[in-house]
């Protein structure tokens, strides 16, 4: 029975992975509007319009969930969501090839200058938050680490659990692949922009990290808060302590309050104040219903 459950879970992960991968390669991801307008009542399509969303792979899944639900409520509006990375999305906004850019980082000043040259005024809207949980095997006795300690583990300065108050066991360092935005975010936020240790194992997906941490007693990894919460019977989240602030247990509330250190906002960028259909969509995303989807997708709502 246990084996059966595990197989099922793996299949789920497989599907999730393939969705991740499709996003990664920047393929067209959502073409739902097509289907919906096909089955809907065609005489009703008065507000027919087309909206493109492009950017961060972290947000592709979330954005397509928003788009799907928005299109269900608004007949005749077609939305297409594409990944490719935050940089790609911002470039598309500057070139006028997308209505909305999704980004898991702030726009850079260099990009802002370029935007001004092109007569585009990116308007920033925080639409959700993303917390990154540091996870270990449930059998590991370590409960709390400081940001500095986590950084030292990932740069290879610490290689044994006893250096951070655990047992005399070698640390197995698990990370996402270097193509992941989370890889870079973690490097910047936790590792002081230093390089990862060469012993760090780069896993192709979040599911693979959770799988390995649940199997390997002395492993450490980082995954999105949503994933970690979902897998809380297989991996344990560490509480994190920033320089002199108190120890914070990662949770949705802590991320919302800005207390948990390893978190980042997820942005929309539009050209100027959003108007028309874009405005409608942004309003929907910020509404209670839109924020409920944030929670369901595994991210943190803004309020």
């Amino acid at each position: 029975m246990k084996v059966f459950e595990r197989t099922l879970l793996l299949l789920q992960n497989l599907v999730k992975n393939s969705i991740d991968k499709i996003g990664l390669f920047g393929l067209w991801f959502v073409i739902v509007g097509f289907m919906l307008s096909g089955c809907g009542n065609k005489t009703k399509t008065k507000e027919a319009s087309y909206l493109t969303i492009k950017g961060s792979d972290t947000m592709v899944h979330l954005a397509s969930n928003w788009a799907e639900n928005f299109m269900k409520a608004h007949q005749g509006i077609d939305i297409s969501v594409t990944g490719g990375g935050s940089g790609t999305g911002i470039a598309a906004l500057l070139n006028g090839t997308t209505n909305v850019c999704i980004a898991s980082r702030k726009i850079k000043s260099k990009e802002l200058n370029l935007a001004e040259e092109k007569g585009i005024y990116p308007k920033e809207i925080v639409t959700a938050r993303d917390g990154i949980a540091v996870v270990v095997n449930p059998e590991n006795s370590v409960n709390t680490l400081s940001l500095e300690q986590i950084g030292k583990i990932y740069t290879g300065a610490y290689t044994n659990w006893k250096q951070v108050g655990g047992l005399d066991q070698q640390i197995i360092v698990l990370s996402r692949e270097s193509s992941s935005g989370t890889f870079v975010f973690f490097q910047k936020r936790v590792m002081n922009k230093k390089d990862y240790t060469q012993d760090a194992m780069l896993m192709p997906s979040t599911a693979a990290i959770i799988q390995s941490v649940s199997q390997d007693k002395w492993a450490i990894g980082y995954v999105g808060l949503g994933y970690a919460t979902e897998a809380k019977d297989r991996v344990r989240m560490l509480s994190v302590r920033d320089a002199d602030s108190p120890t914070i247990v990662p949770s949705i509330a802590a991320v919302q309050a800005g207390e948990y250190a390893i978190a980042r906002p997820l942005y929309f960028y539009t050209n100027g104040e959003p108007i028309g259909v874009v405005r409608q969509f942004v309003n929907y995303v910020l509404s209670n219903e839109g924020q409920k989807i944030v929670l369901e997708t595994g991210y943190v709502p803004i309020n």
Partner: protein
Amino acid sequence: MINWREKIIQLLLVGAASASILIVLLIFLSLGKEALPFMSDPGIGRLLEYRWIPVSFKREVFGIIPLITGSVLVTILATGLMIPFGVLGAVYIAEIAVARERAFLKPFIEIMAGIPSVVIGFFGLVILNPVLKEVFQLKTGLTALSGAILLALMAIPTVISISEDAIRSVPKSIKEASLALGASRLQTIFRVVVPAALPGIIAAVMLGIGRVVGETMVVLMVTGNAAKITFNPVDSVRTMTATIAAEMGEVAFGSDHYQALFWVGIVLLVITFTLNYIAQKVLNRYRMK
């Protein structure tokens, strides 16, 4: 009339044959075109460093040596597993098994060849890795050995099928002569039949190695992908194929990293070409005899 038809057929055949040459040439050209700027800008010497750190806030390092040693280690281990299982399996099926056994074994082995690599990868992640961890008392099952076992599993059907054909095509007269001279059945198999079939067996093994070197999904899933230079079978390695697969999707077009990945592709291509070349040489030498 017949002449005219023959001409068309000949033309079609020439076209088909040269199309593949053309495609290979185009692959080489396009790889070279994307990789070339790397030679002057960061400099080709950057590829010979001992670490692979393509994403860094300090200094990006594109040393492909750890990736090469990773691929080499996995390939050697897989080949070591593949030869005994593949060749002995083929000998059994071709020489010893009775017709009913053969009718049962052959289709199963052929089905094995058709299992998608991602399925084998999941099998490795969930079943093989924990077993290896127990057996060798490791901290983690994400090792080169795990990748090698799975790759051997994927290559064995190829090796068995082709070796078996080679063994069965050994003329019956040679075998009968050996038996008539008083050699036992085992002596006949290993001293007469297998040596006679050796060119075919070597070709089979070379094809198997080709599959192992080029396989991507399985190694990406189970070897841990840590880019370090090691020859320890129970250490984690990052192979060239896994590196290209994992990083190509997100890399900025035309960047140093992008070009470095094309260099990895070129090295991979050169290795498989060399392997094929050696296989041809070996085959020719045995044919001469």
